[in-house]
């Protein structure tokens, strides 16, 4: 579905969705979201863990 080539003749960038900047931007956004979500999830985990060990 995502291939950007139909033949190996005179190929340059050949990775999935290379010819679709919008899709690449969406994937970049998705990758950013994973990093942000990781940090948010750690903050939430920490808050819950700290609450459970309050003096």
């Amino acid at each position, binding site marked *: 579905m995502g291939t950007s080539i139909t033949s190996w003749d005179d*190929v*340059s*960038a*050949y*990775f999935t969705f*290379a*010819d679709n*900047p919008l899709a*690449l*931007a969406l*994937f*970049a956004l998705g*990758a*950013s979201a*994973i*990093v942000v979500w*990781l*940090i948010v999830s*750690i*903050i939430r*985990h*920490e808050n819950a*863990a*700290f609450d*459970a*060990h*309050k*003096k």
Partner: protein
Amino acid sequence: METTPTLESLQAQLNAQQAVFEMHQAMNVEVFYWWCTAIMIMIHAGFLAYEMGASRSKNALAAGIKNILAVAVIIPTFYLFGWWIYNAFPGGFIPQDASAALPWAKSMGPDVKDMGTGIFWAAFALFGATTGSILSGAVIERIRVSAFLILTVFLGSAIWILAGAWGWHPDGWLLTDLGYHDVGASGVVHAVAGFFTLGVLMNLGPRKGKFIDGIAQTIAPHSLPMTLIGLMMIIFGFFGFLGGCIIFNGGDTGWTTIYNTPTNLSAFAFNTLMGFAGGIIGCYLATRDPFWTMSGGLVGIISVAAGLDLYDPALAFIIAAVMGVVAVQFAKLLERYGIDDAVGAVAVHGFTGAVAVILVGVFAAGTPNVDNPAISFAGQLIGALVMILVGFVPGYALSLLLKSANLLRVPEACEEIGIDEVEILAKPYPEASTPASRPSDVPNKLANTDLQGA
């Protein structure tokens, strides 16, 4: 029957051989940086062992998980915006067109005709991961993992690479205006990371019990041997790092520095090893302490890295030995001001890195650049100050922001119990309380022949 070669057929054969040669040359470039990148992973194995060992056992896994996640967040963020920053900001704070380095560009992925971008991006991403990890050891045992990750993303994927754009990029203003020379990243990586760390430490505060009535106490590492081995692994990884700092050119140019001046791996080999040895001796003489003696290897390499291509090896050895002594004094000075740097990162990386940049201006002033001003003391001094500020200001500001949101430091109760118990939910040594003399429940098959073959 043999045909007589014509001029055209000979030319065709020559062109074919030339094409094969150029392809293999491009592949050699890729192979070289591929292995530099792989060797740099050893830096992270080293940081992992070093920081877990430097922690008390109640915080060992929290220190380790920080290191693992640091690499995992810096690599994608360096892809998403770090590489773009390097290419967009060589002129200062105003970006130039670098759309080819954006994550949705065609050039930022597998390309049959591009045998450079990916491998250079990878080496730089690992430089970034190294830079981000320099912060990691200093803040152990009291920083929140989340806060560390936010800070390390800024440091490893934005701050240092901005300094890299200024001091490493062929169009970087420090080079074009001042002739700045920092081939082994003493300034753009180590000084930036070290002074970023200082800014964070000022807001983070010392570990509980580090200072009693203002007097610094020793908080002993739970595994000094693991720390020493980790440091030696970092030294191994440094050879990948420094190899990645040299440019493997196509054509008949050969090796050059990032400033396009001629050099070779032999030059780097002389001074990396002499610096390594000198630093160890300097730190040993200053402390007699195993941790600092091994850290001296890092001090030594960092102290000569900026001029790795230029120094007389004996001079590099002397610089490294002297810096080994001086860096220890700087670490003591920081403690006197109430800064708790658990692994001496500010002294080893920040102070040593900045001085290393200045020393190039002392010993190698007048060395010409290619189409840029010659190396000068003033240029190096200004460059070092820029690196200090580029590191310190955002480190201080970001950590202050996190502190004001109560997101920087673990609560006191957590610090007392240990972060592993509270947050990591795992124990580094679950059987540590089991006496060694306790009889084993598992039969010893070698000692009990009746059980063999049962």
